[in-house]
């Protein structure tokens, strides 16, 4: 890690240069409440001080909602070719917990088998992170995801009159040397940064009682009444999955163009909360009820990957809480599990 300082008066110049030099993706205000990560052509469109988490997480840049994986031509011989798309882009203004979400995706797509469709894009994505005040549904601090240690090229922390830059890769270093007027961080910069981080952490008001969940989940697992109550209003709409920066489930489909000569294999996001998820040919459903599905979603987010990945598969961004029309709330549910166990 390199530590540098960018004075505020030089910030605009830096970002403008990046916008003109690169395909630049950043948060833009969509409506009164939400922001979205979209291509930015003009600095005025960029709004990194968004309060609400952006609607769709940045995972869509690496793992788009639909993506062609393989193309084939069917004739006397069948020709198959992989479709791997990638172009260099800057992703600007992503916050720490979303970077941690992306780190989880990196792990998923590189474990056992390497998913080249994902990594071709990831390699070309220059990530410039930026701290942001937590929204009222964000509980990233309790999930240990409020701070990103890696997964970015440059991370900007806004101090009073300057930005404290953490530069994690040689690529990040090249970019700052080329496009920014920077200087080395001094002792007093580190002191201010340290103070800022304490203050930043104190702004996370929402707390999830996650520490004992790994074992407590097994206590509550067979309590049918608990799960019935927790899931009773669920519409099985899958919104909680679509907005989640760590949800990665997908379906694979094959399709043929109308000429019946050219076809493709593609993937599209799926959702573990919809009934079809566990349905197999012949009509058997391995997870037929919404109780089963909510339980599995919490297990997947909060338990499965503690074993496999060493961390939670939830970064506490709070998007699922905001997206759910049925007001199903992961924080309240986990906290109520704790209450049940300690009752």
């Amino acid at each position, binding site marked *: 890690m390199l530590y540098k300082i960018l004075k505020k008066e030089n910030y605009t110049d830096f970002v403008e240069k990046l916008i003109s030099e690169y395909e630049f993706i950043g948060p833009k205000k969509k409506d009164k409440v939400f922001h979205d990560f979209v291509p930015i052509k003009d600095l005025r469109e960029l709004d990194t001080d968004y309060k609400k988490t952006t609607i769709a997480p940045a995972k869509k840049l690496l793992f788009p909602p639909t993506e062609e*994986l393989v193309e*084939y031509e*069917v004739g006397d011989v069948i020709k198959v070719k992989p479709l791997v798309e990638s172009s260099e882009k800057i992703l600007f203004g992503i916050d720490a917990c979303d970077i941690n979400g992306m780190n989880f995706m990196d792990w998923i797509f590189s474990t056992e*088998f390497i998913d080249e469709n994902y990594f071709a894009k990831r390699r070309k994505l220059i990530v410039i992170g930026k701290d942001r005040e937590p929204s009222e549904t964000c509980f990233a601090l309790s999930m240990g995801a409020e701070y990103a240690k890696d997964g970015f090229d440059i991370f900007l922390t806004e101090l009073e009159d300057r930005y404290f830059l953490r530069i994690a890769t040689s*690529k990040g270093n090249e970019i700052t040397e080329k496009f920014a007027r920077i200087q080395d961080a001094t002792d007093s910069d580190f002191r201010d940064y340290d103070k800022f981080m304490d203050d930043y952490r104190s702004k996370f008001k929402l707390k999830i009682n996650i520490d004992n969940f790994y074992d407590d989940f097994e206590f509550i697992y067979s309590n049918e009444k608990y799960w019935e109550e927790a899931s009773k209003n669920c519409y099985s709409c899958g919104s909680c999955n679509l907005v989640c920066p760590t949800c990665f489930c997908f*379906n694979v489909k094959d*399709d043929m163009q109308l000429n019946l000569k050219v076809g493709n294999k593609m993937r599209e996001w799926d959702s573990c909360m919809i009934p079809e998820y566990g349905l197999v040919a012949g009509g058997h459903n391995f997870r037929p009820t919404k109780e089963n599905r909510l339980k599995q979603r919490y297990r*997947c987010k909060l338990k499965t990957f503690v074993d496999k990945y060493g961390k939670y598969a939830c970064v506490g961004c709070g998007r699922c809480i905001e997206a759910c029309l049925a007001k199903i709330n992961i924080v309240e549910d986990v906290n109520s599990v704790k209450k049940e166990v300690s009752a």
Partner: protein
Amino acid sequence: MVLDIKENKSKSTIYVPDIATIKKVEKLSPIEKLFTIVFDDPKKQEEFSFRPGQFVELTVFGLGEAPFSIPSSPNNKKCFQLCVRDIGNVSGALHRMDAGSKIGIRGPFGKGYFPYDKMRNQNILIVAGGLGLAPVMSLIDYILEDRKNYKELNLVYGALDPESIIFKDRVKEFEKRKDIDIHLTVDNTDASWKGNVGVVTKLIPAIECVPEETFAVVCGPPVMYKFVVKELEKKNLRPENIYLSLERRMECGVGKCNHCHIGDKLACVDGPVFSLWEIRNLKEAI
């Protein structure tokens, strides 16, 4: 990002199937057919090696992809076989295909296989229901081809009715052979049937086995597992020595799409064969 993960310079990705040709189609039952398949690239065919219990993802171009276990022996390097039930999109399309048709194959997949290596010098009890005979056929053939290295081999097989029995010729062959004991039963009989009637679990108690020296293998429809496991536990078999091939919905076969999770495990990469001990705490498993 500068990543540790090296760029893939080969022209392939984990989603690209290899082209193969269906060489032979045999009808096994009213709804099951056996397909003999050879890769178009001779080098791929030569290199294609798998373990009993593993599966492939089969693409019907333009239509879809589905996982199928490989019932043929791993020792057969010239071709491999798939036994497919006509039940949906991909399987239905396959049933309409003749010899000469082209398909795509990815795999073999699954780290969890029937542990033929650990089973050496042990007794083996295989319990199969319906289409569940297909995945274990590979193991049976493997053992029969290396027979002296295994002790007693028992196969309990239950089908819906006499017509639904798959691999009928092989079943007849097993009935004649002395090096495998087959215990056959059907749920519904017809006039021609002279054998056992009822579910497979009824036949298990009569089979003698030394608990410390016996491995069991179970494969069948989802409802079957719980009852068979209960019978095997009554025989005091060790949970580490009871192997189950578990089927779940699969989309990718390579541990990415997450559909086949069973609690904290993935059937495609951690399985599809698990020991009872591995899944002892996964309440949804069986």
